[in-house]
């Protein structure tokens, strides 16, 4: 299989994630879209490692780091979602427009 299949798949996932980050209304939806983008990055790294740009081991170790950072990001993001709901009593991001609630 050529590497183009995997790369095109990664591009489509990345674009779906960008669309979701901008167009979603709830904070948890935005977090899911950010995870989509990170997964597209993982797919690209593994593909480029297999098809001879960086070494295979290095690409897999970097993907491990990205997965760990994604877990951290989700934990902090969900805590923020809880705090925002507790302060504003609503979860629509387009209606939360003031700082220092």
């Amino acid at each position, binding site marked *: *299989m050529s590497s183009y299949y995997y790369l095109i798949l990664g591009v489509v996932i990345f674009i779906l994630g960008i669309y979701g980050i901008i167009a979603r*209304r709830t904070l948890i*939806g935005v977090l899911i879209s950010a995870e989509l983008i990170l*997964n597209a990055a993982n797919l690209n790294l593994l593909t480029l490692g297999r*098809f001879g740009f960086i070494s295979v081991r290095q690409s897999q170790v970097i993907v491990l780091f990205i997965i760990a950072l994604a877990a951290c990001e989700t934990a902090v993001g*969900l805590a923020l979602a809880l705090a925002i709901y507790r302060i504003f009593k609503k979860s629509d991001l387009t209606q939360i427009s003031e700082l220092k609630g």
Partner: protein
Amino acid sequence: MVLGFNVLFFYFLAFFLLVGGALAVTLKSIFQSLLSFAVFLLSLAGIFLLLQAEVIGLIQILVYVGGIVALIIFTLMLIPRVEEGGNRGWLYSLPALAFLILFLSIFKSAKLTPIFRSETVSFFTLSRVLLSDFMFPLELIGVIIVASFITAYAISRREKS
């Protein structure tokens, strides 16, 4: 041309991957979008198996499907009422279109090698690379994990008053 098992498996997984991802960013109910995100993650783990990254596929299932999706479900339980708004209008898909044009122009000028390097990477080799070449990033990631979990606890804590 005879379609190999790999190609058929790839198309099968790519179908579920794209449908799951598209539903995850468009569905109105946040819980249903979370479930389609789980389908997306599982099929992405299958794609990782096709790329001969078995360790990464296993960790993907463990951390994402077992950890992150479960964490988001718990948060959905803690938030009493999540409004089920749809997406914003079509105007907000223009940045994604801009990225599509950017990537197409990159693809037109890219030169990629068609050689698939089949090198097996086991848990053992991966941990050896992790503890020799990537020692400093590993410790840095440990510090970042501790800091982010303390931050998450401090933000989501209920204040007594």
